[in-house]
Structure formats: C-alpha cells, structure tokens
C-alpha cells in the first residue's frame, strides 16, 4: 500500500502544481483588484495606488507567485488582503464548518442514496418504487437554492422546529449543532443522494444478473442474503468511486447552500474572497479544495481496493 501511495504522489503533486498556476493566473485575469476593493467607491486614485503598493501588487507576477508558493511551503499563508485577518485563521475558522457540513451531507447522501437504490433495485412494491422515483426526480430537478428556501419555509418558518440558518459547532454543543446542521446538510445532499441512488440501483441490478448470483441461487441461498451478502459487495466498489466524485461536488456545491443557510464555511469565504479579489484567500482556498479532492480520490481508490480483493497494491 505504501508503494501504491508513493506512486500516486508525483501525479498528485503535478495536479497541485497545475492548480496553483491556474488559480494564480485566473485571478490575475479577472478584472478588478483588491486595492480597488479596499479603496472603496469614493477613493482617489492616489489612495488606490498606495494600497496597491502596500499589498505588493506592483511586483512582477513571477515574484508574486514565488512569494505565495514560498509562503505555503514554509507554512505561512500570509495576511488576507481584503477581508482582514490572517488567511490561515480565516480558513481555519471556515474549515470546521465546511467539514461538518460536508460530512453531514455525505451521511445523508449515503443513507438516502442507499435507501433509494435498494428500494429501486429490489422492491416489488410498485407504489414504493414510484414514490422513490418521484423523490429522486424531484431531488435532481429542483436546484438546491430552491430546495433550501423551501426547507427553511417549511421547517423553520411554518413548523418552527429547526433554526432557519446559522451554525453552532457540533463539537461544542452537539444537541444544538445537529439541529443547525440538518437542513443545510439535507439540502446539499439531495441531488447527490438521488444520483447515488440511481447508480446503486443500476449497480445492484447488474450484480444480480451476474453468473455468481445464479450459482448462489442454485445453491438455495435466500434472496435477501443473496442481495446483501453476494450482490451488494460487488455492487459497492463502483458506487464508492461515484461517492468520491460526489464528495467533490458537495465541496463545490457548498457555495450556494452555505449562502442560503448562513453557514460560515469555506464556500462562503471563497465567494466573499473572490468578490473582493482577496487573492491570498482565494488562492489558498482553491488549492486546499483541490488537495482535498485529490485526497478523496486517493481514499476512494483505497476503499475500492479494500472492497475488491482482485485489486492489490501493485
């Protein structure tokens, strides 16, 4: 396994390098700059220039890039330009919220996706299957920003059982934190859960039509056990791969959901930072997200191999 990880390392680093260049270049291409944002709508050109210089934005681009990467390598993310505070602190504050939201959503994705998929693949009940189809279609058709508003209207405004937004960290107050987490996590999870459910249904269907299932049927093994112990372990590996990809989507999709639920995560920070052209924050954040994505892919592969004995670390 170590050999496998070592082999994956260069390409992962290559992706990160590409990502850093891309982020850096794209940000410089985007019109508007942090100095103008900081200077405000009523500032003079002189004020803007002074701010520009103080931020080091007059340096040549390679120097700015080197400064950024150098800082990263020495663990110093530097100050935020336009939001205030140190980049590391800003990201550190948001990361807990985002991890919480993503994991919560992931849990929903797995639970709902598994439920959707199992019902779709195995239930003989037409009504139940129809209901699941309507649910998954709805989850796929209604954009998260609508789902979010609807969920808030229903659970917070009409029923008044859950808070409409905001966050209490799960670790400091689990009972309250869960209540804050439920709606955003559900909203974020729904489309992915639907995708996963459809995929799982398909994957189980495929596994159930394999020869080894016929072997097991011929040996008199009961259908329920056939499904859980024989077909499912084979259906899971590709689903895990999809789940890995969906985790990426969850991280990326958090921008919208975090805004709707006033969830102070990295998505909101990223949007804020981009809107204000806070280069260091955007750069570090995006690089972080890419790193996480690469790591998730790696973990996915490991899980995939763990589930499928045919794959070994070679």
């Amino acid at each position, binding site marked *: 396994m170590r050999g496998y990880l070592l082999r994956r390392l260069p390409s992962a680093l290559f992706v990160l390098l590409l990502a850093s260049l891309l982020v850096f270049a794209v940000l410089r291409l985007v019109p*508007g700059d942090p100095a103008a944002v900081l200077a405000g709508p009523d500032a003079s050109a002189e004020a803007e220039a002074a701010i520009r210089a103080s931020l080091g934005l007059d340096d040549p681009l390679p120097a700015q890039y080197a400064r950024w990467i150098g800082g990263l390598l020495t663990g110093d993310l530097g100050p935020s330009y336009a939001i205030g505070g140190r980049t590391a602190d800003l990201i550190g504050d948001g990361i807990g919220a985002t991890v919480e939201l993503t994991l919560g959503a992931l849990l929903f994705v797995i639970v709902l996706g598994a439920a959707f998929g199992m019902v779709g693949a195995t239930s003989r009940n037409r009504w139940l299957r129809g209901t699941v189809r309507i649910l998954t279609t709805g989850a796929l058709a209604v954009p998260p920003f609508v789902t979010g508003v609807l969920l808030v209207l229903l659970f917070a405004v009409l029923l008044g059982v859950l808070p409409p937004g905001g966050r209490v960290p799960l670790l400091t107050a689990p009972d309250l934190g869960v209540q804050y987490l439920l709606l955003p996590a559900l909203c974020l999870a729904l489309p992915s859960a639907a995708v996963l459910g459809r995929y799982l249904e398909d994957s189980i269907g495929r596994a159930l039509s394999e020869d080894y299932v016929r072997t097991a049927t011929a040996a008199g093994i009961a259908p329920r056990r056939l499904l859980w112990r024989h077909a499912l372990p084979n259906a899971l590996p590709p689903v895990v791969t999809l789940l890995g990809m969906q985790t990426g989507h969850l991280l990326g999709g958090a921008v*919208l959901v975090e805004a709707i639920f006033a969830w102070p995560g990295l998505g909101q920070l990223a949007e804020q930072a981009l809107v204000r052209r806070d280069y260091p924050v955007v750069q570090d954040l995006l690089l972080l997200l890419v790193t996480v994505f*690469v790591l998730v892919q790696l973990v996915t592969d490991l899980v995939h191999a763990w589930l499928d004995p045919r794959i070994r670390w070679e």
Partner: protein
Amino acid sequence: MTTLAAAQKAPLDSRTGKPRRPRHPYRAALATARGRTGLGLVLLVVLAGLLAPLLAGHGPTDQSALALAGPGTPGHPLGTDDLGRDLLARLLHGIRADLGIIAVAVPLGAVLGCLLALAAACHPLADTVVQRAFDLVLAFPGLILALAVTAILGPGRVPVILVIALAEIPVFGRLLRTGILVQRGREYVTAARVGGTSGGRILTRHILPNAADPLVVQFAVSLTVAVFIEGAMSFLGVGVRPPEPTLGAVLSQSMPYLAQAPHFAAGPLVTVTALVLGLSLTAEALSREIRR
C-alpha cells in the same frame, strides 16, 4: 446461456425467411414505454421552447405596472413577475434560451472531452497530462470557476456555455478513455491492426463507435446537469445577460417571492422537473437497451 444467446443471434424474418436486420439499439430503446415517455416529455419541453414566439402573447422583456399578478390574470395566464413581465412569455423564452445554451454547450463539452480522450489514447505521456488536466477541472469548484470565467469574459451566453462545456469535458473524457481502454483489448482491434488499418483509423472508425454507448447515456444526463449549472450561474448573477429570461434566471428572480407569490417559481420548476424526468427516463431506456 449459450443456448439462448445463440438462438437470438441470427433471427429470421418470419415472412421472408431471410435473416432479419435487428433494429439499432438506440431506436429500440426509444421505442420502449420508458423511452417513449421520456422522449415525449423532452419533446414537449423542446416544442414549447421552439414555439415560444408563437405561444407567448407578450414579449418576454415587456414590463408593465402590473407586478406580481397571480395566475389566471386576464392576458397573463401564469401571472406576472416583479417588474410586471408576463411569466408565460418569460417561461417559454426561458426554455428557448436554455435549449440554445445546452444544445451548444453539452455537445461542445462532449466533443472536446472526446478529442482529449482520443489524444490521450495516442501516447502515454499525453494520457498522463490529459488525465491530470481532467482531475484538475473536476477538483476545481465549479461555481467558483463560473464566477471567474464570467468575470473575465463578461456576461452573456458564451461564458455560460463555456462553463458548462468545461464541466462536461472531464466527464466525457474519462468515460471515453475507459471505453477506449476496454475496447483496445478487444480482438477486433487486433484484427484491424493485423489487417493493416492505421492507428488513427482504428481509433476513430473502430474503437470510437464501440466505446460510444456510455457516452450517449451520459449525454442525456449531462443535458440535465447543464440546466442545473445554468440555474446556479443565474442565481449567482453570472448567467445570461439580463433581461433575457432563462429558466435559471426566472427561478432565481422568483426566490424572494417564494412565500408571497409561489406561482412565480412554479413555471420553471415544473419545466425543469419535466425535462429532468424526461431525460433521465430516456437515459435509462438507452442504458438498458445497450446493456442487453
């Protein structure tokens, strides 16, 4: 099931006694109940979009003092929006605009993705580079990308199309790459090579058509994803240039009024649902028929 398989291999036409030409699997798929329902829904939406200028009684950007009128208002069957524009007109033209976008963006993404996958198939180094590039695009948060692209290019259809295409490139690219790898090991490829067929022709004429099946299914899926991306971009204010309506634009404009004027959001939601349902049914029908 060798017996059955063999029996189905060479069906004979009951009338002529000659071997019957089996229908193309795509056509067979669309002839199933599932495929027909799916296609019907999609066509319904497409027709609404195509006939928008005929069906809509008002211009989609014509404003009036009659703001937020409810459905059933004389002259405004679906009501009006906050600026007094006819919602039916905006919905139909919104569909039209969305169709225009996804009909360009998804094929563009698919073609580019496929080209890259083909390039990757030519050389191991190219393969590595292309794969990592795909990883990179997949890893990049899509909405941030959308914000950046629009900021650089300015508003309009082009950035929306680009963002959608960009998001679709790795999806199609990876899918085709896997397909190529699988097909490459097939014996007919060796046969073509031994038969003197050049590498490029093997790739394009032999492997590509056989690796295309999952792409066709993905295409239907990607069309729905594209509608989604358009909506999210409109919501973030980086969609198509206002006041042109798109489904996403109308939907995001309706959000502040969800509580007081739910009809505002209903049109696009129903349309998108029909489209998603139709496309997913079509995709399912296709994938079932292909897997046979």
